[in-house]
C-alpha cells in the first residue's frame, strides 16, 4: 500500500510545492542572500547579523515586538476561544451572519483602523469627550498612543482572525463526552479543563502560532498609531528597506531572516510543548 500511496500523495502535492518554490522560496532566497551581502549589495559578510546582535536598538525592537505580539495573541486567542464557542450556540443561519461580520472586521487594519480608534478614543474622541462630560478624564487612565492603546488595537485585529480559525474546531467535540463527564460529576468548567480544552488544544496552539506570526509581521496599524514611539521590528525592517530615508535593505533582510528563524523556533517549541501535554498525539 505504501508505495502507491506516496505516488498519489506526491501528485497531489506537486502544484503546492511548485507554487511554494516559485513564490516563497524565491523571495526567501533573495532575502537570505541580501542579508549576507555588504552595503550596496557587494560581497559576502556576516556583518549585518553581527550588527543586529550587538546593537541594542534592534534587540529592543525584537523584544517589544515579541511582547506585543505575544500579549495580543494570547488575549486574542483566549477571548476568541470563548466567543467562537458562544457562536456555536446559535442557529446556523445566524452563525453565518456573525462569521461574515467577523470576517469583515478581520480585514479592518492599518491606517483606517488607527483612524477609527482615534475617532473613538483620540484627544477629541467620542468616548474621551463623553467621559469628560461626566467629569472623568479618560487619559488619566488610558492613553491611546501607548502600550495600552497599541495592545488594544492589536487585539482588535487579532480577535476576528482567532475567532474565524477557532470556530470550526468546536464541531469536533462530541456532545457525548460532555454528557459522560457531567454524569461522572464534572462541572462544565471541569469538562472544559480536562477534556474539551485538551482536545482542542492543538488547534488553539496552532492558531496562537499564526496570530503570533501575524502580529510579529503587522505593521500598518501600529505605525499609524504610535509611529516609532514604540520600537517595533516590522517598523525597523520597513525603515531599512522601504523608507524615504537612506535605505539599508541588507540589514533589513538580516532582521527579517532572524525574525523567520525566531518564529520557526517558537513554532517548534510550541509543538514540543503540545506533545508533552497531549500525549495521545503521536
Amino acid at each position, binding site marked *: 500500500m505504501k508505495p502507491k500511496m506516496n505516488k498519489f500523495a506526491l501528485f497531489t502535492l506537486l502544484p503546492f510545492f511548485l507554487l511554494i518554490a516559485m513564490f516563497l522560496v524565491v523571495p526567501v532566497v533573495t532575502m537570505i542572500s541580501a542579508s549576507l551581502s555588504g552595503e550596496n549589495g557587494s560581497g559576502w559578510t556576516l556583518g549585518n547579523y553581527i550588527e543586529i546582535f550587538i546593537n541594542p536598538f534592534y534587540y529592543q525592537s525584537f523584544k517589544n515586538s515579541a511582547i506585543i505580539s505575544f500579549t495580543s495573541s494570547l488575549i486574542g486567542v483566549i477571548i476568541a476561544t470563548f466567543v467562537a464557542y458562544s457562536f456555536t450556540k446559535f442557529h446556523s443561519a445566524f452563525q453565518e451572519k456573525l462569521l461574515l461580520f467577523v470576517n469583515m472586521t478581520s480585514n479592518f487594519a492599518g491606517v483606517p483602523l488607527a483612524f477609527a480608534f482615534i475617532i473613538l478614543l483620540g484627544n477629541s474622541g467620542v468616548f474621551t469627550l463623553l467621559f469628560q462630560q461626566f467629569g472623568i478624564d479618560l487619559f488619566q487612565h488610558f492613553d491611546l498612543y501607548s502600550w495600552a492603546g497599541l495592545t488594544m488595537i492589536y487585539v482588535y485585529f487579532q480577535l476576528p482572525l482567532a475567532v474565524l480559525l477557532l470556530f470550526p474546531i468546536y464541531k469536533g467535540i462530541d456532545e457525548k463526552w460532555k*454528557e459522560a463527564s457531567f454524569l*461522572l*460529576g464534572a462541572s462544565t468548567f471541569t469538562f472544559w479543563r480536562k477534556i474539551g480544552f485538551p482536545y482542542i488544544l492543538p488547534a488553539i496552539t496552532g492558531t496562537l502560532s499564526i496570530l503570533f506570526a501575524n502580529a510579529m509581521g503587522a505593521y500598518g496599524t501600529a505605525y499609524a498609531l504610535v509611529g516609532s514611539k514604540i520600537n517595533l521590528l516590522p517598523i525597523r525592517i520597513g525603515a531599512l528597506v522601504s523608507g524615504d530615508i537612506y535605505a539599508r535593505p541588507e540589514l533589513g533582510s538580516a532582521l527579517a531572516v532572524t525574525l523567520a528563524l525566531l518564529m520557526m523556533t517558537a513554532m517548534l517549541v510550541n509543538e514540543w510543548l503540545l506533545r508533552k501535554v497531549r500525549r495521545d498525539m503521536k
Partner: protein
Amino acid sequence: MSYLTIDKISLSFGNVNVLKNLSLSIEKGELVTLLGPSGCGKSSLLRTIAGLTAANKGNINIDERTITHLPPKDRQVGMVFQSYALFPNMTVYENVAFGLKMLKMSKELIQEKVTAILQLVGIQEKENAYPHELSGGQQQRAALARSVVVEPKILLLDEPLSALDAQIRKNLQTQLRLIQQKLGITMIFVTHDQEEAMAISDRIYLMNNGEIAQVGTPEELYTKPNSEFTARFIGNYNVLTRAQIDCIFNSKHEFTGETFAIRPEAFNAEPSKACFSINGKVQDITILGNIVRYELKVGGVSIMVEQLHHSNKRIMYNEEKTLFIEREDVISFQ
C-alpha cells in the same frame, strides 16, 4: 413510593414520538432491565433519566425528590453510553480515574480503585493506552469501568456488554450483580439480548415503540407473555393462528382464543399425562451450541422446536417425528 419513579414521560424529536406517556418505578437496589426492539426508545429513556435529554412532559423522582429539572451532574446517576463516549485525550487509566478525581479522592485511593476495576473488567494491561488504540470490546469495558468505579446511586447501562464475547460477558454479568448487591446500587440495564436480560435482572421492563409492553420477573415474562409481542420477543415462541393450531393438532383440542403461542423448547420426545401430540417432518436443523433447533413441518405449518444438543439423540433431516406438548404450554391470547 419507589426509589426511582418515572411518571408519564413523553419525548419527541420533531414529530416523531419516541417515548409515549411512559411510566415505571424501580426499588432501591433493584436491577431492572429494559428490553425491546432496536429503536423502541431504550437509550432515549436512559438519557431522559440521566437528564441529558429533557422530556416534553412528565416527571422523574428519585428518593421522593422531583429531579425532572436538575442538571445531570446533580442527579448522582452514572451511565455507560451505547457509544462509550470515552475521553479521547485520556488514557484508559485517566478515563476511569476521572470520576474519582471529581470526588476529590486521594491519589492512592484512586490508584487502588482504578487498578481493581480494570482488573475486574480485564483490561489492566491497557491502562496506559488511549481509546483509539483499543479494540471495540476493550473500549466498552473501559467505559463500563469508568461508570462503575464511582459507585453511583443509580447506574444506567446502555448495552454495556454488547461487544463482548460470552466468556467475559458472563463473568461481567456476575461481577456487576455482585457489585450491585454489595453497594445497593439501583441499576437500569439496557440490553437487546434476552438471555442476558433473563440471567441478570430482578425485573424486566419490555418496551415496544415508546411504551411499556409488559413488566415482570424474567420468568413471568418468559412463561406468561400477555401479548403476541412479548411472546415473540422474549420467548422466540411459535405464534400460531387458530387455523394453524387446528391443523397441527388435527382439531383435537379444546383451546379457546384466536392467537396461540408455544415455546420451541416445550416439545417433549416423551409423552406425559395431559399432553397433545404433533407429528411432523424435519425441514431444517441448526446447531446453536447447547441447543439444536429444528424446523418441523406439521401439516403445512412450520414449527420451531428446540432440543438440547445431545449427540446421541439428534433427529435427522427429513425424519418423521412425533412430539408431545403439555396443555399448559400452549398459551392463548385474545
